[in-house]
């Protein structure tokens, strides 16, 4: 399941719900991404492409389900202006075995960081700037090509 939203979410409540709707699995892996206040960051704004973002996230989830035997998968991604400490993204995967759950969760995060139509604008005391694409994230995604 895919959700792209401006509103905050509650990672604990999401994990509880995910765990309850998933039956007879042995392994649930989750990842929560948060805004870091490194280097005096005041806020970051995630621009996105409504419609295409959801489509891409659905495609990424389908690809993960194709590659690993997942009982369930959840991706929640926020957009809009976020402050240090805010939740950005939550991914949960459920499978029979831990290796599949872990690998699918990492795969989803690598793709979200590199393929999903989100653009990051960072505000510092000196002003704001759009973040340029990082080659390390591309390298992380290239692992899966």
């Amino acid at each position, binding site marked *: 399941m895919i959700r792209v939203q401006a509103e905050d979410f509650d990672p604990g409540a999401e994990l509880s719900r995910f765990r309850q709707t998933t039956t007879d699995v042995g392994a649930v892996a989750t990842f929560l*991404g948060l805004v870091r206040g490194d280097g005096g960051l005041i806020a970051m704004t*995630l*621009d*996105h*492409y409504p*419609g*295409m973002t959801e*489509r891409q996230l659905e495609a990424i989830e389908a690809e993960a389900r194709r590659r690993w035997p997942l009982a369930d998968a959840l991706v929640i*991604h*926020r957009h809009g202006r976020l402050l240090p400490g805010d939740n*950005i*993204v939550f991914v949960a995967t459920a499978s029979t075995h831990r290796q599949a759950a872990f690998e699918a969760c990492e795969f989803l995060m690598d793709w*979200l*960081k*590199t*393929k*999903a*139509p*989100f*653009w*990051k*604008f960072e505000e510092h005391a000196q002003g704001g700037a*759009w*973040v*340029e*694409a*990082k080659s390390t*994230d591309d390298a992380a995604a290239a692992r899966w090509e």
Partner: protein
Amino acid sequence: MKILYFAWLRGKTGVGEEDVDPPAQIADVRGLVEWLKTRSAGHADAFADLSLVRVAVNQDHVQPDHALNPGDEVAFFPPVTGG
């Protein structure tokens, strides 16, 4: 034809979305970009370095030689920078 701009491309063009009616001889994304550059100094600036620009047509990533149809939704954006 609906054109969308994201991130700094929106800042440079000054618009997030515009409806345009390009001349009939414009057949592909590359031609559309050249034509859009004539709309304003901001548009010309946004498309000054095309190595920084990515394109989606009807929400699918495409290359510059992708053929266009009148009802297409064409989006321009920089490489994505994730969450």
